[in-house]
């Protein structure tokens, strides 16, 4: 009995401490940038995973379908990881706006002449704009893929993943859906532009996240090179996938 009380007390105490740390962190400038960096690192891992699956659509359509089905129906991913992802995305965006507003307020009268290009990259100074472009893209992307998925699975109640739920021979619908979306040239164009902005965002964001969590040491140079590969490679890969499916269908 006594032991139980002690444990509860200890839990509450630690709980308070954790709360205290978290609220403390988000109320400080370094804490906010740390949180921004952690959410960014998480999103970059997600992006890599997303890319790995999508590229399968080019090389192995069957595997793509199978993996897509697994991702779309496995409960851990749907009910545990998907909410975390959504939280991560929303957090990153909201925090990005909060920082932008705070930072704008920190200088009330702007310079008449400011030569930002002399001391910093365009990407680093325009994260809000590349970010907003990505946000706009995500709305389109959700409308294209996520909304239909959710509608089919949770409104229509069709968890089969088949093109024709009544015909088990009809095959998975995922690749077909993907290809269908890349018929329109304007959509492909929007995707390509968005990926360019994603690359710009990542070009600063990747290495910046490491700096924010305090990693700046002898590995930094290597990390910077890797960050360029990632920041250009992943969006370029997505562009390749979009163009591949588009060209495949019109040629």
């Amino acid at each position, binding site marked *: 009995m006594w032991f139980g009380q002690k444990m509860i007390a200890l839990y509450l105490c630690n709980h308070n*401490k954790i709360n*205290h*740390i978290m609220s*403390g*962190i988000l*109320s*400080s*400038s*370094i*804490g*906010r*940038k*740390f949180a921004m960096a952690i959410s960014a690192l998480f999103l970059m891992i997600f992006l890599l995973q997303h890319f790995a699956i999508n590229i399968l659509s080019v090389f192995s359509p069957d595997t793509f379908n199978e993996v897509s089905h697994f991702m779309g129906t496995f409960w851990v991913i749907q009910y545990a990881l998907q909410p975390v992802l959504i939280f991560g995305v929303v957090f990153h965006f909201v925090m990005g706006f909060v*920082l932008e507003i*705070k*930072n704008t*307020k*920190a*200088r*009330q*009268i*702007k*310079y*008449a*002449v*400011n*030569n*930002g290009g*002399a*001391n*910093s*990259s365009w990407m*680093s*100074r325009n*994260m809000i704009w590349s970010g907003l472009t990505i946000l706009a893209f995500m709305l389109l992307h959700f409308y294209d893929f996520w909304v239909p998925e959710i509608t089919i699975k949770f409104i229509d109640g069709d968890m089969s993943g088949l093109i024709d739920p009544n015909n088990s021979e009809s095959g998975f619908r995922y690749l077909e859906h993907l290809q269908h979306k890349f018929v329109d040239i304007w959509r492909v164009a929007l995707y390509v532009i968005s990926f360019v902005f994603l690359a710009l965002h990542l070009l*600063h964001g990747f*290495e*910046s996240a490491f*700096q*924010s*969590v*305090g*990693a*700046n*040491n002898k590995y930094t140079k290597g990390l910077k090179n890797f960050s360029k590969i990632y920041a250009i490679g992943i969006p370029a890969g997505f562009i390749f996938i979009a163009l591949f499916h588009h060209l495949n269908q019109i040629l």
Partner: protein
Amino acid sequence: MNLTLKIWRQKNANDKGKMVDYQISDVSPDMSFLEMLDVLNNQLIEKGDSPVAFDHDCREGICGMCSLYINGEAHGPDRRVTTCQLHMRMFKDGDTIHIEPFRAKAFPIIKDLVVDRSAFDRVQHAGGFISVNTSGNTQDANSIPISKHAADKAMDAATCIGCGACVASCKNSSAMLFVSAKVSQYALLPQGQVEATDRVLNMVQQMDDEGFGNCTNTGACEVECPKGISLENIARMNREYLSASFKG
């Protein structure tokens, strides 16, 4: 050289302020930027106008008093110099030069190009020290060997002159480079370890309270810093701060 100057004039903290044009002739390329302003001021005084107020003192790049945002850059277009070390040979005959004060909410303008940087002092009051009394009985200086590497790195951080160019150049008006230089100096030395946790928490808290913006790692501060203080210091302060937060 003949130049056109566009200078921010503001009578006092409450005045709205505006850019005013001035012509100046016979500028020698060997003059420092501030000497060029001296010449302008002498002309203004003799004409009965009010001279342009700007901060300056040592005129050899170490006191950190001079500021000025020249053609869109803190301390002007040259690297690793303060405004007093910027020479007119960096400019061409016929150039137009924009001169503005360092701008940030945390650096309110006092007059013309003079700003109040006491926010930096208050950040230092919050923890920019090692608590050791002057007794004459501290241990012998050589009883704490410090590796040359650590001593040199601490020295690199300690060369900060507190001019505020980092804040002025930062698109977010963040003071991270300044604060991290002090935190780093002590974090790198054994003498600074005892108070490390409180120091970083208190200094960052004060920095935030002063209304500086949030760092987004653009790196502008490092480029514009007249003493070349490295971004490594900011990363170190992030580490120090995070581990201090989790220690509670």
